[in-house]
């Protein structure tokens, strides 16, 4: 071992040079190139009509079936900036609206992402909204009905949303938790668009387009996904999503064997239970 290190310190030898990571605007972001999206039904027309009528939109569906991709696609289509807020269980109304910060001798008001979106007429997308604190409904409700107003109590301001502004949220009805249910007073303010895993032919096409996989691989992955979806409620909370299939196809395209790719990208992503992992591996060896 030691003679390996005689000619100089190997750690110092590899100097880390910074890669030019693209700095993205953290808040409003214009989507410049068309995000790939394959419509499964009339969701694009429905969304456009809701936007034109200034109605907020609720995207329902299991994880990884294309909700976020859809909203990016629509933001690109409508040429509006998109502000995405990933909701978590500590997200409060103040995190959305804004707060005072202290710099030097004075207090400065800083808009939160929702206020920023209202001011700039952007699309504000609250991802997994049920995760957020209950008090967020205070600001969501007046903005989501025909008032279209954002009360900023602490700042003493009441923002009227311009016609370009749109509030969109996503919600996964698959969680079997009573706490993770959307209240009726909230959900009944929204135009709801339901997302499902795409039909097999469409899902194959999505995998092929996203990854360049051949049609046999894509078809096998879709069948594997269907087998895992049959297990929903019998050991799995969710079956494999389209996103996981895309991951697996990308690994296969890099020369990983289908069995290893499906194990890493699908089985381990779905479960920690050794028996479930084995069952999913058996599915993979059956479809390939």
């Amino acid at each position, binding site marked *: 071992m030691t003679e390996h290190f005689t000619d100089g310190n190997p750690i110092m030898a590899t100097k880390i040079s910074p890669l030019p990571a693209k700095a993205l605007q953290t808040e409003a972001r214009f989507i410049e190139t068309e995000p790939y999206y394959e419509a499964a039904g009339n969701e694009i027309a429905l969304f456009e009509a809701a936007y034109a009528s200034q109605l907020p939109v609720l995207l329902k569906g299991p994880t990884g079936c294309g909700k976020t991709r859809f909203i990016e696609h629509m933001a690109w289509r409508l040429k509006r900036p998109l502000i995405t807020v990933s909701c978590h269980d500590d997200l409060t109304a103040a995190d959305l609206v804004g707060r005072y910060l*202290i710099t030097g001798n004075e207090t400065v008001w800083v808009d939160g992402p929702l206020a920023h979106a209202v001011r700039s007429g952007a699309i504000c997308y609250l991802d997994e909204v049920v995760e957020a604190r209950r008090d967020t409904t205070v600001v969501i409700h007046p903005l989501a009905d025909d008032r279209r107003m954002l009360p900023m109590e602490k700042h003493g301001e009441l923002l009227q949303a311009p016609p370009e502004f749109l509030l969109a949220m996503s919600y996964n009805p698959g969680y079997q938790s009573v706490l993770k249910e959307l209240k009726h007073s909230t959900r009944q303010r929204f135009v709801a668009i339901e997302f499902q895993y795409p039909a097999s032919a469409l899902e194959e096409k999505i995998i092929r387009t996203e990854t360049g996989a051949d049609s046999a691989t894509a078809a096998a992955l879709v069948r594997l996904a269907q087998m895992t979806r049959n297990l929903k409620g019998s050991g799995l909370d969710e079956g494999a999503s389209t996103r996981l299939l895309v991951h697996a196809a990308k690994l296969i395209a890099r020369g990983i064997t289908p069995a290893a790719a499906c194990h890493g990208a699908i089985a381990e992503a779905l479960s920690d239970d050794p028996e479930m992992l084995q*069952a999913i591996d058996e599915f993979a060896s059956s479809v390939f």
Partner: protein
Amino acid sequence: MTALPLTARLLREKLDYLLGPVLSSRRTAATLAEQMATLDRSQQDLVLHWVEVIAHSNYEMAYQFVAAAPVALKKLDTGAAEAWIIRAMDVYDREGLHRGSEVFRTIDAHPPSAADHAAATFEENAQVLALFACGLSGRRLQLDVSDEPHTDTETLYLPPRTAVFDNAAANFNLYKVLITLLWAQGRFGTFHVDVVAACANYADPQRAAALLSHFENLRLESRIGSTLPGIARDLARLRGNHDDPRLITLQSPDAVVQDSLALLADHYDTFELPVLPYRIALRPEAAATRAARMQRERSELAEALAQMLPEQPDDRKPEAAAADRIDIRAGLSAATGNMDIEVRIDGTSVSPPAAITQLIESIAQDAGEIPDDYLQAIDQRSNHQSGDETGPADGGDISPDEKGVSHLYDEWDYKRRHYRRDWCVLRELDVTAANDDFVAETLARYRPQVAQLKRTFEMLRDEDRLLKRQATGDDIDFDALVAGYADLESGMELPDRLLIRRHKAERDLAALFMVDMSGSTKGWINDAEREALVMLCEALEVLGDRYAIYGFSGLTRQRCEIFRIKRFDEPYSEDVKQRIAGITPQDYTRMGAAIRHLTKLLNNVDARTRLLISLSDGKPDDYSDHYRGEYGIEDTRQALIEAHRTGIKPFCITIDHEARDYLPHLYGPVNWTLVDNVERLPLKVADIYRRLTA
């Protein structure tokens, strides 16, 4: 150095002791002992160990085992011998002494092969195999064991073990292949005709059935190949990749069971069956099950569709029959292997609820499509209803009282290191409410303590409050700012903790109390338990935690009982109080089944922390089946491990002074506590809960 074999005399003494109840003056252990004396010592020890284990279940089984063991052990290695014993005991559990001892007697019928050490058993792989079967599309299928693989179209019967190949993976794979073939029989229409009846017309129905089964396997292999090529490859390899030109028609994706029957007619006399590592039987049960299911699902579908059908507008002519308004198309898509289902009502396409889709899929699987007369059943149904309103409801043959309340639970047999399947029958019952003043009296007696308890619990109650001087937060903490500003003026740095944050109460826990209602609690222990529950409820009401109380008792595995005292969704009402007062000692303490059932209930509650707290007065115990002692402790331990695995935290409060000897083994070193003075139990339980959750 190996120990010397035991002598026949010594063995006879041991066997006399172990098998006493089934020996007599005419049936002695003498011959058994002589045969056993020929084994080496480690084999003798193995036999003696298992004799003892088996005798716990049944002495006659143990006797049969000893009789068969010397011959068997000359052929089997230790692993294979244990598999053989386990299998016999499984058969005994399921089918009784006669069939069980048959397994011991017919050891020659299952000649051990070189592959025995690599055998895969159903028992070991049951979980993975069940998940695998569940992943296959179509009707939900159960798995069970049988010596001959076959299916009745609802359950797939698999051999208890596979030992064809000399590596375990290949033996496991054989299970996978068998499941897929049996699934495909139902999926791709093997039972669309009564295959057993069709074979009965031949001179040798058994040969005909074997040929037909082989032809069907080939047909199904090519159907499977389009969606599960991995399995089809395995199948082809198992039969030696040899394609018989006579059977080429079976490879067409349109081939149906009639094609196999036609080939059977052509080649019945001449075809030579290849020797394969598996053989799938065609059993008459399949036709019967299918017929019963078709009849049942026909009326279920009619019922479900009738409810989906919107009311007809009045101006429409009333004769518009339901059958004309609904159109269902269902069929297997050859390309994807999925069932394509389309339902149209009054010409527009609708998406029916998942339950109806499953029903349609199941019917289409049996009949190949949705037969027209199924839709006519809707109208017949409505006529029937209007004509005879008091007539029996559909499916009245199931008696809900029997089915609704009894649950089956496995039980862990530590000596066999296996579960006894569906061993305990558990019923949920209500405690008979007592109409007395027990609760009021208890509260009066402990009035000062109750007040004290409530104050303590109020302090524990997590409330929303403002946290000051925080680095992050929603608002400015002006007190901190003023102080900080003074610091700044005097030349120091402005502190960064200048914000206020709102702390939200997040005491997200659910507790289930399981109370020992065994006969041993009779008297003052029972009183103390009831008083403890009263105090506990008072305290928990202050705290606002979700909680439920269930009692448990049992008398043999056939009668495990759970008594509802307070469910999670029930408020602490007068009824609950009367039920607490009505807790009376019952029978014994078969804890395993009770824990398994309550685990299930507790897992239905959504909470970050789920506690299962048992109040007990002693070891698990039951009247028979040797539950007393180590067996009961090990079963209880296993049940607790299962509960823990699902995220539940078990805890035990006991008054048994010997608890130190066994509770650490059951609950771990810290998850139990001993209240050594029963009189103090009422005061202690709430306090323990407070410390546990603070």
